[in-house]
Structures are given as C-alpha cells and as structure tokens.
C-alpha cells in the first residue's frame, strides 16, 4: 500500500496536468527506510516527449547527492501517461531500476478524471497496490 498526503497527491496531479501533453516526471523523497513520501521534487523531462520521459543526467546526479546528504531515498517515482492508461508500459517495466520505490502513474488522457495508480516493479514483475490518501502524513 502507498500512503501519501492530500498535498503530495495534489502536487503530483497538478504537475502532470501542467506538463500535458508531454509526460511529467518526478520523485517524492522521504527519510530512508520510512516509506513516508514527504518531499516532492519535480524533475524536468529531458526527453520533452508525449510518449517518453527521462531525468536529465546532471539533474539525476544532483537529486541523488541531495537525497544522500539528507538521508533520504526516493519513496515514490512518478510519471504521467498523456494518452494511455495509468499502467506501466513495457518500457516502464524494462527501465524500472528502483526496487524499493512506489511507481506512481497518473494519466492525463481525460481532462476531468484523475487516474492515479501505484505499482511495485521488481525484476520485471508489476504488482499494483492500493493508494491511501490521508489529510496529514
């Protein structure tokens, strides 16, 4: 199960909407081992594409350096799909390399309906998990 605050949920959805029709991507960091996603870090999609996302290599390095200095880890890795469902694609599965992260997918294909789902992706196996949104985390 992924538990996150309303503020974090809203921030991820707002980022996805803002970058539509390109895919949006980012991380929600939290204290190492806590499973608490508390710090939203919007990342630039270096691919600037409606069908692909990739963190810029220098931004990625800075992000991990910062998380290491704060004793944080990426609790959530999120990105949007802008024309397809909020489910990991073959590419998403092949490239998922954070075995401890919750992979959140948001679909912005419908302007008025939010599709927000969370998955574990470990060694090519996708497991969907419930998402619990709470007022305060």
């Amino acid at each position, binding site marked *: 199960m992924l538990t996150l605050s309303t503020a974090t949920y809203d921030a991820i959805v707002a980022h996805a909407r803002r970058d539509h029709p390109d895919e949006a991507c980012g991380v929600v960091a939290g204290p190492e081992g806590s499973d608490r996603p508390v710090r939203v870090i919007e*990342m630039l999609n270096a691919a600037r594409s*409606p069908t692909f*996302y990739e963190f810029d*290599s220098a931004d*990625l*390095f800075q992000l991990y350096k910062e998380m290491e200095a704060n004793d944080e880890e990426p609790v959530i890795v999120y990105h949007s799909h802008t024309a*397809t469902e909020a489910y990991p694609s073959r590419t998403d599965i092949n490239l998922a390399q*954070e075995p401890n992260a919750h992979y959140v997918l948001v679909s912005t294909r419908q302007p008025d309906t939010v599709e927000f789902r969370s998955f574990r992706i470990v060694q090519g196996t996708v497991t969907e998990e419930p998402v619990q949104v709470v007022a305060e985390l």
Partner: protein
Amino acid sequence: MAVEVKIPTILRTYTDGSKAVPGDGANLAALLDDLETRYSGLKARLITDDGSLHRFVNIYVNDEDVRFTGSLDTTLSDGDSVTILPAVAGGSF
C-alpha cells in the same frame, strides 16, 4: 588509483548490501575490471556485450557524467568519487 565507488540500491545485491566500495584503476574500464574480481556479475549490469556503457546506466566521476569525459576511457585519480546511478526513464509504449 584508489577510488570510492557508490553503488545504487538495485546493484547492492552484488556488494553484500554495501552502499560504497573501494576500487582501483587507471581509468573507468580498469576500475570496472577490478570491481568484477570481487563483485562478480556487476560489470555485465553496466557494460553491453559490445563493450559500451549501457544506455540506461549513468556513471559519474566526481560530478561529471562520463559520457562527456571519454566514457570507459575516463581517467581516474587517487581519491576520485565514482557514482553509479540507473537512469530514471520510461515511456507510454
């Protein structure tokens, strides 16, 4: 050249869970060969069959992505910090 190598979560299965390990080499290729002698299987996760760096693995020497400094030929100095990070990427298809 004695350097420290930071290992990402997904590759710590090769290093008994260690986040950072010491290594040695005049350049990045030599360092990866040195690591392979102690952490068997690690190199294949970083280098393709044709000997180039995997497209979705990033290696940095100090703050520089080695793609901009000569890739596997990037030279190392004593005390350098080498960081391995998997790319964070995906797509709709």
